[in-house]
């Protein structure tokens, strides 16, 4: 744990408004991004992000200073998203969640590919989806995901590997992978 993080948290606990702002600005992109990708709805993501930060500051005294701050906050984020998703599942919705987070920059084949990937990810079971989104879309490391989800690294790797296989299979089924003749084997593998 960096000294800066511990000092920042101590200032937040004393009610220092600047420290509160600094902590929010440090993690808002990660929290909001994860909320949007898990909830697939901007407004819901804003609401849940706010809930996350309120909970973070309410529980800040319980943060273990020997552990990094970010996985702890991301763990709270995942839990709040799970709660929101379970509540949302109990009421009828007509919102196109995937369209809600599409960006204008995605056009043509690229847009179709991104849309298919999102559809494939949306069809994953929750654990796999969280692991996939945190690793591939949020850029978290295995260790950070394991800390956030309170699971062993091996479990996270298993979830992610299975998630990838399911997404690859979905892409193949949806015709996103062109069948090639044996002569068209790639001569060079891009790492």
């Amino acid at each position, binding site marked *: 744990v960096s000294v800066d993080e511990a000092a920042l948290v101590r200032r937040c606990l004393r009610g220092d408004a600047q420290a509160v702002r600094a902590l929010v600005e440090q993690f808002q992109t990660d929290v909001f991004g994860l909320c949007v990708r898990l909830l697939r709805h*901007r407004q819901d993501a804003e609401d849940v992000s706010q809930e996350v930060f*309120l909970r973070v500051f309410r529980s800040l005294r319980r943060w273990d200073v020997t552990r990094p701050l970010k996985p702890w906050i991301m763990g709270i984020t995942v839990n709040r998203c799970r709660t929101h998703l379970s509540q949302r599942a109990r009421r009828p919705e007509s919102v196109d969640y995937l369209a809600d987070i599409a960006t204008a920059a995605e056009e043509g084949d690229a847009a179709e590919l991104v849309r298919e*990937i999102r559809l494939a990810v949306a069809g994953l079971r929750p654990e796999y989806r969280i692991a996939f989104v945190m690793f591939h879309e949020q850029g978290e490391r295995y260790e950070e995901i394991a800390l956030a989800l309170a699971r062993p690294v091996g479990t996270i790797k298993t979830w992610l590997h299975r998630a*990838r296989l399911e997404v690859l299979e979905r*892409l193949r089924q949806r015709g996103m992978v062109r069948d*090639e003749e044996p002569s068209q084997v790639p001569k060079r593998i891009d790492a």
Partner: protein
Amino acid sequence: MSCSDFQHLLQCHLDGESIADRAALEAHLSACSACRVHWRAASQLATGLRLIRPLPVPPEFSGRIVAGVLAQQRAARRLRQGLAIVGAMAAAILVTILLIRVWPRAGDTPTRPVDSPVVQEAPPSVKETPGDAPSLRESITQVAQLTLRKADDTVGEARSLLARPLANDGPSAPMHSTPPTQTLREAGSGITAGLEPVADSAKRAWNLFLREIPSVRPADKRGA
């Protein structure tokens, strides 16, 4: 390279690791069409993931959150202060009640140990809560009022009964069939019957007093 080795390599590749033995991979892909499809799908996935851009945070997002957090902290501070005040008041009330209840009794019984609480000496059937004191006074007052009312009624009845034989003794009064002794007996029984509620009320009041002053009795017994 086997298909199982390829799957491991594929996962490492998607993890972002570099491929050590590219020649072996290309040889396997040339021979295995299923793995080749998998490889192309993985390439598509990697391409698509690169297209997914970081999501911009809405404007004034942090400002709203900071305002919410600061409001929450202020509310929590006010709640803590309120709880402290309530706690202090409760402690003060408790100390006052203890002083009121313990102080005079400790003075009455010098032989009692100082650390023995008075409440423990009371029998368990007796309810010595502070809320009982006004109800006890009210019940005593009601019993006293009932007693007085019944006494007045009884005196009135007795007077009317006693007035009848005296009226019968008059010269103008007609001869009564019952003898005077029977009338007096009737009057006596009427008085007794009239006094019964008074006696019952007094008995109830006395029993109530006896029940409500149990803590004095052990000390009296010890003193005796």
